[in-house]
């Protein structure tokens, strides 16, 4: 394989700037797919991803491009997830590339996430060249955006292709630019094998399929390989490359190539993203840099709505983990919710995605508790606990002090909203770091924020306060000492463990009050009056009352009404079945998530 004819690249962009559409066009234009084979968005092959318009799992596709220079080039287009939750996966995908196309929306311009992704790409030594997308929009301002790219990011953009991925304008130019602007891969096929794992997935027939970029050396069927970080050793069963939407076996993968390896590996945990694959008999001296064990950042309780479905939930989590090594779970029991699991996620989006997949692909009805970050509890006896479930907080007398995770946050916002965003960050206990104007209209705000202040409704608050004009990115910074307390909720005098959460001392009263108000809305009237109380350390700090039900009767029921009214009663009854019984109070499932939606403007 002539390395000079290979181009390994990815596309980086802010959500909605047209990354997937451009990928589709590239695949289409390189002619490997007939129109019929073309799914609407080839790279996004999961329903869920398509609906959300984002790409979750990184994937790669190999196409053949005949350039104007007369050569046929192999393009390996590696898709990267576009969300901060998957930063590490993004960084590994980037490490597998030699160059990147930066897609910028001709109307929206550069956004916080664009910046984050570009810097990440530049950090990995990638040659980045921009393309300006959506130039056919009436609001397109390519000149302004080009200037912005040069000013803000500091990369050459004057000759950026002006394209419309949606309408197929300028795609040829992009393809030629890939040939000229993305460098050919380096590496020595005769050196010991070193290959970077940038993704893997589980297939029930082939076992784990490992996605690799070969840096040095060659791998083929029969090679005995070793994963340098996990130590797993297997003999290669098959190697190949990625056709659009399928795997195409080949004889060997050598330095510079992107492809897959199967080796009857049973679990994804043996093929961690970022690990180095080497030849067990002739290993390379050093693993590739940048490997990191991925740790969950956010935890929540996941329970089956119908407690008899516990086994189904267990099975579903096992299966999901086969394809998502970053999902963590362990059994947990709640007085209110019964048997379930405490699950750990890379972030809120990851949590959302897993929850939706459980509900959609495994047809489960779930109750999830409020997400919690991992607190460090320093006990008086000198031991430290990583607290992932508020219910497990030791007695206050045993606690010396607690620490909470802090993130470095970057918020890009149009200048009209700088004030209200700063106010928001202040309210969320943010520590102001800096602000720089990136152009006349926009500023980049840097804050340190406690993670627990952003996992609830920060995104929504940001959006509503900036009318959608703010973009946000963050990176975990570390732990800091903090005044924290456990807020407990009592419903009809009984503590509901699944509703407890950790809160900063200063906001305990406010959160408690809003929590009570929210629960009052969520809990239906019963035959009796129900007090709802918020307590810190046994002291009641807020109270609401759900009044006893006064009226629940159908005034009218004649011949034509009967079937309909029966359905209504059935629905009411069904609704009750789906509720959780705590003491003699029936609590709707949604109440357990209501801590998440404490609307800040109320």
């Amino acid at each position, binding site marked *: 394989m002539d390395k000079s004819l290979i181009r390994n690249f990815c596309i980086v962009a802010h959500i909605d700037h047209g990354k997937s559409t451009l990928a589709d066009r590239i695949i289409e234009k390189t002619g490997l797919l007939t129109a019929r084979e073309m799914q609407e968005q080839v790279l996004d092959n999961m329903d869920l991803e398509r609906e959300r318009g984002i790409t979750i799992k990184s994937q790669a596709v190999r196409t053949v491009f005949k350039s104007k220079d007369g050569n046929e080039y192999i393009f390996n287009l590696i898709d990267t997830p576009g969300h901060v939750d998957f930063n590490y996966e993004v960084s590994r995908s980037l490490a597998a590339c030699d160059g990147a196309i930066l897609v910028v929306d001709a109307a929206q311009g550069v956004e916080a996430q664009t910046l984050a992704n570009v810097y990440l790409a530049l950090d990995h030594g990638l040659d980045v060249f921009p393309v300006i997308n959506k130039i056919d929009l009436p609001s397109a301002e390519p000149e302004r955006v080009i200037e912005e790219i040069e000013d803000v990011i500091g990369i050459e953009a004057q000759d950026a292709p002006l394209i419309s991925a949606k309408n197929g304008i300028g795609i040829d130019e992009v393809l030629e630019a890939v040939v000229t602007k993305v460098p050919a891969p380096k590496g020595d096929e005769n050196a010991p094998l070193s290959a970077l794992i940038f993704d893997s997935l589980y297939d029930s027939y082939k076992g784990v399929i490992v996605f690799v970029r070969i840096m040095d050396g060659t791998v083929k069927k029969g090679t005995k390989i070793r994963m340098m970080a996990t130590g797993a050793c297997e003999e290669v069963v098959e190697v190949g490359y990625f056709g659009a939407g399928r795997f195409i076996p080949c004889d060997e993968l050598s330095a510079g190539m992107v492809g897959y390896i199967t080796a009857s590996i049973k679990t994804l945990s043996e093929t961690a993203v970022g690990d180095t694959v080497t030849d067990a008999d002739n290993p390379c001296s050093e693993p590739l840099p940048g490997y990191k064990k991925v740790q969950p950042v956010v935890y929540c309780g996941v329970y089956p709505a119908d407690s008899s479905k516990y086994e189904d939930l267990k099975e579903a989590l096992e299966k999901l983990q086969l394809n998502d090594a970053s999902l963590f779970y362990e059994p947990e029991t709640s007085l209110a919710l019964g048997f379930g699991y405490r699950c750990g996620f890379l972030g809120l989006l990851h949590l959302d995605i897993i929850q939706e997949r459980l509900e959609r692909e495994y047809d489960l009805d779930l109750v999830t508790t409020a997400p919690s970050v991992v607190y460090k509890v320093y006990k008086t006896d000198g031991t430290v606990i990583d607290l992932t479930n508020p219910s497990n907080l030791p007695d206050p007398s045993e606690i010396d002090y607690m620490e909470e995770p802090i993130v470095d946050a970057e918020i890009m916002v149009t200048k009209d909203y700088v004030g209200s965003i700063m106010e928001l960050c202040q309210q969320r206990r943010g520590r102001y770091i800096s602000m720089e104007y990136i152009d006349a209209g926009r500023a980049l705000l840097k804050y340190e924020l406690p993670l627990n202040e952003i996992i609830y409704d920060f995104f929504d608050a940001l959006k509503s306060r900036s009318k959608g004009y703010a973009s946000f990115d963050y990176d975990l910074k570390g732990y800091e000492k903090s005044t924290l307390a456990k807020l407990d909720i009592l419903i009809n005098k009984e503590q509901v463990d699944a509703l407890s959460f950790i809160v900063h001392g200063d906001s305990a009263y406010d959160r408690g009050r809003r929590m009570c108000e929210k629960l009052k809305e969520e809990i239906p009237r019963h*035959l009796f009056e129900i007090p709802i109380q918020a307590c810190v350390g046994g002291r009641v700090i807020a109270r609401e009352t759900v009044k006893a*039900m*006064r*009226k*629940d*009767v*159908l*005034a*009218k*029921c*004649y*011949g*034509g009404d*009967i*079937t309909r009214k*029966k359905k209504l*009663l*059935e629905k*009411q*009854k069904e609704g*009750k079945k789906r509720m959780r019984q705590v003491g003699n109070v029936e609590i709707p499932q949604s109440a357990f998530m209501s801590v998440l939606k404490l609307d800040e403007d109320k």
Partner: protein
Amino acid sequence: MKISDTSEIYIHIPFCVRKCLYCDFTSFPADDDIREKYVDALTQELYFIANEKCHTAISAVFIGGGTPSVLPGDKIQKIMECVRSNFDLCDDAEITIECNPGTLSEDKVRAYKQSGINRISLGLQSSNDEELKKLGRIHTYDDFLKSRELVKNAGFTNINVDLMNDIPGQRIKSWEQTLRNVSDLEPSHISAYSLIVEDDTPFGEMKKNGELEIPDEDTDRMMYHMTSGILSEYGYERYEISNYAKKGYECRHNTGYWTGVPYYGAGIDASSYYDNCRFVNSDDILGYIKDPLNGHFLIEKLKKNDLMSEYMILGLRMIKGVSYSCFEERFSESLDKIYEERIAKNIADGLLKRDDDRLFLTERGLDLANVVMQGFI
């Protein structure tokens, strides 16, 4: 299982002068041609039902709507002739027509009388003209008084008046006034409903947009509890959640609905219940006019469990409730055994009461009837 030896007929007249803001029945204004054709279609369907479906005597006929009284008198006569000549009508059959104030005339009322109709149901809703306006009614209280004169003068003695509480802007005092005004006129029967705001109505829209100000739950209950008190002063007894009558004047047709008597519906969107099945006609009037016999679409086939469940949820609507012995006679099962737990729980919660052979809703049970009825679903 024992089945009733009589049946009822419901005839739907989907026409009105103008649709009220809360109405979710199938009804609309229509021209003479459509009305004429519709009545023809009705007679065809009634003929078909009589010959192909119904094999029992008829104890009650109800001509409802819409506003049946918008039709000319001879049309009602034509419908009634068709009923008389094709069905086996009991001698004492209750035959009701729904009329709205502002649509009656001396001729019409005379035609009703001649055709054998013996009960008039007048849709008044309120004696307060402001409230009538709020509901989108076309008439005033005075119109009602005139209509009632016409009906009385034609010799009708069995008259129902429909009333409504929870009207937007209604006060407890004005509800009391409506009840007293109407009771003073001594109709034999009063239906008094809380307004139900249905989704696909102008009221439903207004509610969604927060533009509908109706009395709150507490006021509603106060009005409801007041109703039975005031009406009993005038000799009316509550016999169903929203129905009150002087002794012996309980509506037979509606009682049929609550006691499992089969009924045959004719006309668009009319429901039927016979052979343990529920049916409904299409609401497409042009389709109906073209082919009135292509109806009675099966929507529910009731098994024994369903029948028992209906027996309870419908039967408990009546103030006297259900009878243990009747239940057993009908289903050859003991009511206690089938619903033991539910009954005990509701009795403990103070929603149901047992008195010898009868099981019935308490006052609180009447407020919370749905809670009780869910137990029998």
